[in-house]
C-alpha cells in the first residue's frame, strides 16, 4: 500500500468517525429535547395511560338540630379484601379472617384462593374489627376505610331526616333536599396498572383526598321532637289509632321544631318492614310497603281538615267585613242550603250566639252563614291569597298539593261545606302554615327545617333564607283571630288544650273520613301559645282512633301536655331572642 493511499484512507476513516460522532451528537440533542423539553407532556400522557382511578367516598355532612345534637352522622366502616398475588401465608389469612369476620373458613378460603386482582371478603365491617385485622399485619390483606351513614337516634324524626342509599346519596327526607350540601366531593386513589389493567403493587398509590360534605343545621329540637314522639306513641296506643302526627312550629318564621309521624321507622334499617308485617309476595309489593312506611303524613298526605279550617273561614270573614265579632247568629241544629239540610254537630242546636261564641261552639251553621256572606268569588280569592292553592314550599320532598274544587264548580252547597272544612283536602303542614300566618300578624311564612350550612372547618357557608309573603290578612284581623281562638281554649270546645299559667289559643276538629259512614275519623287540634304573641304552634292529628274520637277530647290533651312541657322549656331557652 502506497504512503499516499494510506494517508487519504486514514483521513477518510477519521472523517467517518466524526460523521458518526456528529450523528450521535444530534441524536443526543434530540434526546435532550424529548426528555427535558417534552418530559412534562409525555409524563402526563403516560400517567393518563397507566393510572387507574378508584373513588374514595367523601364524608357526608351531618344533620344537626338546634340544640347541637347530631341527628345524622357518619360511622367509619371497613372493607376487607385480599390481593391474591401478595398473600404469603394463605392459611393464616384464612384463619384470621374467618375468626374476626365471623365467616366460615370455606367461604374465606375460596376467596383467598381465587386468582384475581383484588377480592372483597366483607364490607361494612366495624372499624374496631378492621383495626384488629390491620394489627395482624398480614401480607395481601387490605383494610379500606369507608363511611356509612349512621343515625344515632334510630327512629327519631325518621320521616323527616330520611336516609341514604348504598352510594351514600339521599333517598328520602332532608337527606334528599340537602343532598348538594351534604354530599361533599369524592376523592380518588390513583394506582398504576400494566397494559392489562392489573395494578402494580410496587408503584404505590397517589391519593386525592375527598372533600367532606357540609353540615346542615336544622330547626328541629331533639327534646321537643322526643317528647312529641312519646305523646304520639301514647295516643296511638291508647286510642289504637292507625297513626298520629304532631307538628310543632314557630309561627313567626316557619321553623319547624318537631314533626312526628308515628309509627316511625328505624333509619339504620330502613328496608326492614315493621314487625308483624306479612312477608310481601313480590318485590313490587315490598317496595309499596316500604314506601308506605316511609311516608311523612304531615306533608305527603292530604285530609279533610274539618273544623280547624274554620280558622281560615273566620279570618276571611273578618278580613272581608262579612262578619264582625259582635254579629249575632241563631243555630237551630241545622241550616238549609238550597235544598240541602246541613246539620250542626249539636243536634239540638246552639241557639242564639255571637260570632265568638259560634267559634267557641264550632257551630257549623254560623260558619256556613259566614261563608255564604263572603260569596264564592271572594272566598276563592281568600283561599288563594292565604296560599292554600299553592304548596307551602317546605324543604322536604314530595309535598302534596291541595285538592280543591275548581272555582266554576263551587256552588252554594260546596261553599257551605268548604266553610267548615269539608269536601276538599289539604296537608297538615298547609293547615299549620296557614294558621300560623293568620295568627302571626298576617305574614305567610315558609315552613322549613334548614337553618344554615356549615363547612367542616365550622364556618357558616350559607344561612338559608325563605320567602315570606306579607299582609295576607291585616294585623287587626290577626289580633281578632288570636282573641277568638284563645276564647275557644279558655271557654269553648278546645278547653282541654288549656295550660295552667299560659295563654293558649286553638281550634279542635273531628272529621269523618271518606267514604262517609265508614266510622273512621280524624281527630285533630291546632293550638298556639302565648295567645297574644304566638311563639309556638302545634297540630296533633290522630288518624282513625277507636272509642272516643272527638278532637277536643283526645287531640287537645296531647297539645296541652306538649305545651305544659315545652312552653317552660322554650322560655328557659329564650328561644326567640
Amino acid at each position, binding site marked *: 500500500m502506497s504512503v499516499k493511499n494510506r494517508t487519504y484512507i486514514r483521513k477518510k476513516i477519521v472523517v467517518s468517525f466524526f460523521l458518526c460522532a456528529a450523528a450521535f451528537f444530534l441524536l443526543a440533542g434530540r434526546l435532550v429535547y424529548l426528555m427535558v423539553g417534552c418530559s412534562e407532556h409525555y409524563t402526563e400522557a403516560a400517567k393518563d395511560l*397507566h393510572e387507574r382511578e378508584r373513588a374514595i367516598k367523601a364524608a357526608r355532612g351531618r344533620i344537626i338540630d338546634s340544640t347541637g345534637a347530631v341527628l345524622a352522622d357518619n360511622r367509619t366502616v371497613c372493607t376487607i379484601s385480599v390481593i391474591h398475588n401478595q398473600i404469603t401465608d394463605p392459611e393464616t389469612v384464612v384463619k384470621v379472617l374467618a375468626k374476626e369476620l365471623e365467616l366460615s373458613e370455606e367461604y374465606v378460603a375460596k376467596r383467598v384462593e381465587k386468582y384475581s386482582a383484588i377480592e372483597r371478603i366483607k364490607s361494612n365491617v366495624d372499624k374496631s374489627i378492621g383495626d384488629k385485622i390491620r394489627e395482624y399485619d398480614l401480607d395481601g390483606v387490605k383494610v379500606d376505610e369507608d363511611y356509612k351513614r349512621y343515625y344515632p337516634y334510630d327512629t327519631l324524626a325518621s320521616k323527616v331526616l330520611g336516609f341514604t342509599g348504598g352510594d351514600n346519596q339521599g333517598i328520602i327526607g332532608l337527606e334528599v333536599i340537602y343532598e348538594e350540601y351534604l354530599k361533599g366531593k369524592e376523592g380518588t386513589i390513583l394506582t398504576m396498572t*400494566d397494559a392489562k389493567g392489573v395494578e402494580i403493587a410496587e*408503584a404505590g398509590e397517589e391519593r386525592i383526598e375527598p372533600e367532606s360534605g357540609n353540615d346542615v343545621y336544622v330547626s328541629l329540637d331533639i327534646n321537643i321532637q322526643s317528647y312529641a314522639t312519646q305523646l304520639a306513641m301514647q295516643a296511638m296506643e291508647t286510642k289504637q289509632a292507625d297513626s298520629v302526627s304532631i307538628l310543632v312550629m314557630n309561627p313567626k318564621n316557619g321553623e319547624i321544631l318537631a314533626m312526628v309521624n308515628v309509627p316511625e321507622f328505624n333509619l339504620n334499617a330502613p328496608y326492614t318492614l315493621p314487625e308483624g308485617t306479612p312477608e310481601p309476595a313480590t318485590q313490587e309489593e315490598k317496595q309499596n310497603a316500604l314506601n308506605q312506611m316511609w311516608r311523612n303524613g304531615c306533608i305527603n298526605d292530604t285530609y279533610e281538615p274539618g273544623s280547624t279550617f274554620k280558622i281560615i273561614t273566620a279570618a276571611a270573614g273578618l278580613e272581608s267585613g262579612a262578619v264582625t265579632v259582635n254579629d249575632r247568629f241563631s243555630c237551630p241544629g241545622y241550616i238549609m242550603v238550597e235544598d240541602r239540610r246541613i246539620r250542626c254537630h249539636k243536634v239540638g242546636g246552639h241557639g242564639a250566639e255571637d260570632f265568638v261564641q259560634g267559634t267557641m261552639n264550632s257551630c257549623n251553621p254560623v260558619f256556613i252563614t259566614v261563608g255564604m256572606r263572603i260569596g264564592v268569588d271572594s272566598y276563592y280569592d281568600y283561599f288563594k291569597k292565604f296560599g292554600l292553592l299553592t304548596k307551602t314550599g317546605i324543604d322536604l320532598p314530595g309535598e302534596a298539593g291541595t285538592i280543591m274544587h275548581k272555582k266554576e264548580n263551587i256552588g252554594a252547597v260546596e261553599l257551605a261545606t268548604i266553610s267548615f272544612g269539608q269536601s276538599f283536602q289539604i296537608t297538615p303542614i298547609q293547615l299549620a302554615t296557614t294558621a300560623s300566618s293568620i295568627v302571626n300578624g298576617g305574614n305567610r311564612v315558609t315552613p322549613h327545617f334548614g337553618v344554615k350550612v356549615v363547612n367542616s372547618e365550622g364556618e357558616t357557608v350559607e344561612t338559608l333564607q325563605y320567602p315570606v309573603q306579607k299582609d295576607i290578612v291585616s294585623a287587626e284581623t290577626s289580633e281578632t283571630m288570636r282573641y277568638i281562638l284563645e276564647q275557644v281554649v279558655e271557654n269553648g270546645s278546645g278547653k282541654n288544650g288549656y295550660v295552667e299559667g299560659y295563654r293558649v289559643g286553638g281550634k279542635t276538629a273531628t272529621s269523618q273520613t271518606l267514604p262517609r259512614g265508614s266510622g273512621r275519623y280524624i281527630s285533630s287540634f291546632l293550638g298556639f301559645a302565648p295567645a297574644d304573641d304566638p311563639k309556638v304552634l302545634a297540630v296533633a292529628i290522630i288518624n282513625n282512633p277507636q272509642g272516643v274520637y272527638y278532637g277536643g277530647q283526645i287531640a287537645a290533651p296531647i297539645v296541652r301536655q306538649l305545651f305544659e312541657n315545652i312552653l317552660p322549656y322554650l322560655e328557659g331557652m329564650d328561644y326567640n331572642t
Partner: protein
Amino acid sequence: MAIRKKRNPSENYFDYSLLFIVLFLLGFGLVMIYSTSSYEANMQGHESTFYLKRQVMATVLGLAAMIVVANIPYHIYERFAAIAYLGSAALIPMVLIPQLRYTANGATRWIRIGGMTLQPAEVAKLGIIISLASLVCKMGRAIRTTKGFFTVLAIPLPICIMIRLITNNMSSAIIVFGIAALMLFVASPEYKKFIIMGAGGMAAIALLVFAISQASMTEGMGFRSERILAWLNPEAHSSDKGFQTVQALYAIGSGGILGKGLGRSVQKLGFLPEAQNDMIFSIICEELGLFGAIAIILMFLLLIWRFMVIASNAPDLFGALLVVGVMGHIAIQVILNIAVVTNTIPNTGISLPFISYGGSAVMFLLIEIGVVLSVAKGIRLKDI
C-alpha cells in the same frame, strides 16, 4: 511462535479497550433484556428469565466464536470473498423454503437449521464486508475511476434488493447498502461524488415526504406512506401505525433527566410492543433517564473510536476495510435505532447492537468483533 511471543511480548497488540467496551455493552444489554422481558415472559407463561437465558446462551456462543475468529489470521477471508458474497446471496431465498423458514412477529426473516434460527440478513452484512474489502483490494487504483466507483456501489445492490423483496426487510437492506457506501467512501479518495450523492438522496427523501404529506389530504395511502404520516404526527396515528412510536415517546419522555430507576419502567408492562427488542433503547431512557441514555451513546462512541484507531493502524488495506465495514455496520444500526425510537426518522425495525434481544444478531456482531480483534492483533506496537 510461542517462543517469539515469550521473547518479545509487547510486540503483539491486543485491543483490550475494544473488548471491554463490547463486554460492558453485552452485560448491560443482558440486564436490560431481563428488565424489559421478564414481564412479557411471565405473561406468556414462561419463567421471568426465559428471554434472558436464551440471550445468555447466544452471547456465550457468540463470545466463543469471537475468540476463535480473533485468533484466525484475517487474511484467510480474502480467499473466501466470492464464497462470502455468493453464500450470503444464496441464504436469502432460503426463507422461502417451507421446511427451513421461521416466522416471528409476522415477518418471515429467519431460517431454522438444527434448532438454531439464523437471519440471512445478518449473514449478508458480514458477507458484504468481507467481499467488498477483498474486491477493493483487488481493484487497487481502479477504484479511482468512475467505473470502479460504480462497480463497488453496484456489487451490494442485488443482495439489498433480495433482502428487501424476499424478506421484506427494508432496514437491513438500507444497512447493507450503508455499509458498502461507507467502505467505498473510505476506499475512494473522492469527496465530491459523495457530497452530491448525499445531497441528492436528502433532496429525494424530502421531496417524497412532502409529496406524501400533501397527497394524504386527498387520497388513500399505502402501507409505507402511512408510516411516513405517522412519523410526521405520531399522536394523530396513535391507534395504529403510530402506536409503537407514541408508546416509545411516552417511555422516553417520562424518563426525564434521571429516569424512574432500573426495573421501574411502566411502559414495558405490555404498553410498548417489542420492548426488549427494537424498542429497548426507549426503556433504557425511561428507567435510566437522559444520563443513562447519553452514557450508552458515549459507550457506542467509544466503540466506534476504537474501530477508527484500529482501522487507521491496520497493517494493510484489507484489514482496514474490514474494520471500516464493521464500524459502518454498528454505527449505522445504532444511529438508525436511536433515530427510530426518538421518532427522528419513520419507524422501521432496527435492533440496537449488543443490547437488543436477538440471538443471531449478537452472534454475528461478536464474530465481526472477532474479525476486528484479529485485525488489531496484526498491528505492531511500534507502528502506532
